[in-house]
């Protein structure tokens, strides 16, 4: 009976235990969560802040039968030799397989359910204009607060957007009444004259215990190094989610599902999807796909610039596939580009249509100019010529035309076109 011990009770852990149960895992599963709440949908915290939903709405479903979840239990050390973890309250738990799903620790204020549910008063200063800061500032602004967003970069999300995109975002935020303080040093303390200060300065992977236990971590970020089977350098210990360097929801869930398959005897690998940053800002579509920072020269660069309507896109293509993209204000293009990026499909030739979501249909051929063979009524396959001939033979109103030709008797959608065709016809002289 393999004992699976999961450290962390976030989204990844929740998905892991659900999938283990669905795949018929029958060994004991224990989950140790540091936060005092049951697992909740962290990615919706912004909606709590924005007042759209109460905190209670974020609670994920109860764990499957047989899964023991202990909340308010923080793991402080891992004894790899004995395969035991030790918690802050002194308790110990043994494992055959340890799964680290400890997520990320905020460097700022807004990260947990408790944070989001805390009342915010008066003028709010949001410090940090990365994704979280932009989401937080706009959520609070939607709730009617006076908000100032302070960010060290020259424009919001400057690590992920280019200058054109960043300026469009800045302009939109300002148009919503958010005061921007950009560039320059933002003091770690200090209130910027606000009643509430929320630091949204990002997160770092929560991996202290892992590091101390001698597990390999990445130098720059501190996230735990895992292979495509989600194994750390200790074969009994796996890691998933933000603590393993996969902070985005889709990736974390995919890792959880992959691990569940592996732990129940299946054979699969975790294949990471290209990263997509997609801040939730209702009314403003922002997306950054692919790695930020320098990369090899692309084969092609496609740009779309419509400053009057706040729309912009810069797409890099390599080997006919999306390698990087930044989009602002282009909802259809964003969705389409993301799908191309995820599936690795080649970019279609009509890039403009891709960005705008297809070309709009040319509005209304002039009925008078239509060729005779043009089908007017598809429901009954009636051509313009047939309608014209019926008219010429005396069918002068819709009812008569319908009776003779059957046009307009189906869905009725051709009624306007039939009328227009007839209106353009001369009424022949009555032969005496």
């Amino acid at each position, binding site marked *: 009976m393999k004992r699976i011990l999961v450290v962390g009770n976030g989204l990844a852990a929740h998905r892991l235990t659900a999938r283990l149960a669905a795949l018929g895992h029958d060994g004991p599963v224990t989950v140790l969560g540091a936060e005092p709440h049951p697992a909740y949908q962290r990615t919706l915290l912004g909606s709590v802040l924005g007042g759209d939903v109460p905190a209670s709405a974020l609670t*994920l479903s109860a764990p499957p039968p047989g899964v023991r979840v202990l909340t308010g239990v923080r793991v402080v050390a891992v004894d790899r030799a004995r395969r035991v973890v030790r918690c802050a309250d002194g308790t110990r738990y043994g494992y055959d397989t340890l799964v680290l799903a400890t997520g990320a620790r905020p460097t700022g204020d807004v990260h947990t359910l408790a944070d989001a549910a805390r009342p915010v008063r008066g003028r709010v200063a949001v410090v940090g204009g990365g994704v979280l800061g932009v989401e937080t500032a706009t959520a609070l602004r939607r709730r009617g607060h006076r908000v100032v967003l302070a960010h060290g970069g020259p424009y919001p999300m400057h690590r992920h957007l280019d200058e054109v995109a960043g300026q469009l975002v800045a302009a939109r935020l300002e148009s919503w009444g958010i005061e921007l303080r950009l560039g320059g040093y933002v003091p770690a303390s200090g209130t910027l004259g606000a009643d509430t200060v929320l630091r949204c300065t990002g997160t770092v992977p929560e991996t202290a215990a892992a590091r101390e236990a001698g597990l390999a971590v990445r130098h720059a970020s501190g996230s735990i190094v895992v292979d495509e089977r989600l194994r750390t350098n200790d074969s009994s210990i796996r890691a998933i989610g933000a603590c393993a360097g996969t902070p985005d929801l*889709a990736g974390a869930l995919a890792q959880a599902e992959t691990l569940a398959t592996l732990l129940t005897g299946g054979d699969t690998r975790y294949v990471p999807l290209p990263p997509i940053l997609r801040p939730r800002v209702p009314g403003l579509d922002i997306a950054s796909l692919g790695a930020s920072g320098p990369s090899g020269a692309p084969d092609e660069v496609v740009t779309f610039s419509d400053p009057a309507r706040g729309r912009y896109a810069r797409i890099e293509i390599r080997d006919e596939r999306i390698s990087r993209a930044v989009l602002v204000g282009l909802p259809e293009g964003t969705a389409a580009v993301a799908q191309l990026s995820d599936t690795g*499909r080649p970019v279609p030739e009509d890039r403009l249509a891709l960005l705008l979501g297809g070309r709009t249909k040319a509005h209304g051929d002039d009925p008078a100019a239509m060729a005779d063979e043009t089908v007017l009524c598809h429901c009954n*396959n009636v051509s313009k010529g047939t309608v014209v001939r019926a008219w010429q033979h005396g069918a002068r109103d819709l009812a008569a035309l319908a009776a003779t030709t059957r046009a307009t*008797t189906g869905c009725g*959608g051709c009624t306007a076109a039939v009328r227009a065709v007839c209106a353009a016809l001369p009424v022949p002289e009555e032969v005496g």
Partner: protein
Amino acid sequence: MSGPLSELLSVPGSAPPPRTVHTHCPYCALQCGTRLGHALGEVTVTPSAFPVNQGGLCQKGWTAPEVLSTADRLREPLVRGADGRLAPAGWDTALDLVAGRLKEIRRAHGPDAVGVFGGGGLTNEKAYLLGKFARLALRTSRIDYNGRFCMSSAAAASNAAFGVDRGLPFPVTDLGRADVVLLAGANPAETMPPLMRHLDRAALIVLDPRRTPTAERAAMHLRPAPGTDLALALGLLQLTVLDGRLDHAFVRERTNGFEAAWQRALPWTPERTERVTGVPVAAQREAVRMLADARRAYVLTGRGAEQHSKGADTVSAFVNLALALGLPGRDGSGYGCLTGQGNGQGGRELGQKADQLPGYRMIDDPAAREHMATVWGVEAAALPGAGPSAYELLDSLGTAGGPRALLVFGSNPVVSAPNAGHVTERLAALDLLVVADFVPSETARMADVVLPVAQWAEEEGTLTNLEGRVLRRRALLAPPPGVRGDLEVLRGLAVRLGEPAERYPVEPREVFEELRRATAGGRADYSGVSYERLDAGEALHWPCPAVPSGPAHPGTPRLFLDGFAHPDGRARFVPVEHRDAAELPGRDLPLYATTGRVLAHYQSGAQTRRVAGLTAVEPEPFVEIHPDAARRAGVTAGGLARVVSARGAVVARVRLAESLRTDTVFLPFHFPGDGRANLLTGGALDPRSGMPEFKVSAVRVEPVDVVPGGAVSV
């Protein structure tokens, strides 16, 4: 004198021939009202002012009489001889042969060695009697029908949510007052054009990977990737809550189970939904806003959302959305499913379904069994139990544990079943295949015995349309001599199998009277409906229970206004999760193939391919493909392409469609031979409904070399 009139006059003892009759079109579930008449020796059809079609009719309906006199119409029984060819035979010979073989097979292998396959085009009377025949004369549990490929997902979801399944729980005309209608996987502009007259006023939100003619008329067109409708519905549910549009009062007072369903929707943030489905966040948001802000709104599903291995769950997700918005059970709003087949509704509640008894009763329910046993005059214990669903049944034909004989009434599975190549092999492996049809369909041509039966204009009976209304089918003419009614055929067989003749009335009216008693007290209660009331012009939607005294029950045009059909009167949210389609595109098969219908043809095309005007519009199989995908596949517009899946290959004419997703191709399923779209589809089934995954297959497209002279080298 020759022609139909003379045939009628030659029937001894018959009433004077009617000049015109009011009846309904033989094709789809809209059942447009039509008037049949005679002119110059031909049967004429004109649409009537029936409220559903309001004088409208599509080209299939207008040309339907041509099938009555099609050149290869079946006019006498055919029996396959020792030389392997079908040859004419007399009725007694044919029926004796069938009965004899059935008895042998049953004696040697048991009653389940004989299967029955019915159709959603059969009248209520025929469907009812077929089910009775299977259970009493054959004692087999192996009966199901092609409607499993149509309605089963929506049926399962509706039953779970509302306690009852009636496609549209409101009259079609109610749609005409709607402000917003969401169509998930439905294309009525092509599949039931006169319905569009009722959708003129509403702003339409169309969910379809293709830009269909229906999508062209939409205020919003959302194009989810094939197989992701469930994720989209979950995302829309989450947005309903996030954007403050949940109808709290409705959820609290009229439903159960919201919490569990909501928790399943939690991971489906708008952004994640966008990523998986390809539908932009802004569009999702706008769709929810439109539905929520409308005073009257409907959510309707069609095959596009339902014909998946997760079809029932997908419909459940859309029903959940409708419940969250407070739509069902209100006058002027609701959830509905657009039934496809002519008697898709009646056909699924009168006992030709594997798990069912008449009145939408369940065959494993002891009370239901007792009731039917009483009606039929048999022991309950003698009734068989539930059997496998349609595809499972077909899959098992000619195998060790499966049926060795199959009787097919009103269906053409060689073309319409998924994994058609495999199903054809299974049919070929039977010891006995008997097909009752009026034209030599592809399945009939494989049969050992073919029994010619009457067409719609030659019979009386009832059908139940998509709004649960019982309609009268009326005969203009008698069938050609040599052609019999299905009821007569069933009696002929039953008697030879030792059944008392009285159990199998041949008069539709008589069968209907029995059907009334059979359905009494069931969920689909026809007991208060009668030919007299229908002939008097009453609009009777079931349930329409018989009333012992006082005025007759008026029928129930609108369900759920006072309560849903669960014991506590509440609707139920059904918690569902998104999952992938059974197969996804990969390197070798990089495209999605989806199948569907076109306006000019109906279902397997057995009827419509025999109408010149319709084949002129759509003469051949085609594959719709985006120009980019075509270029990469090396195929050109107007040329031929081979479309290949893990199961088979189709040869089809290439049509470019810029509006298609670049990763998706579309094929209509109306064509035979190597043009059968179902050669591509697979047998992955929905565990809740038995629905196969018609809408998602992984394929590749490649060019076909054509040798000069037209021969295609494969």
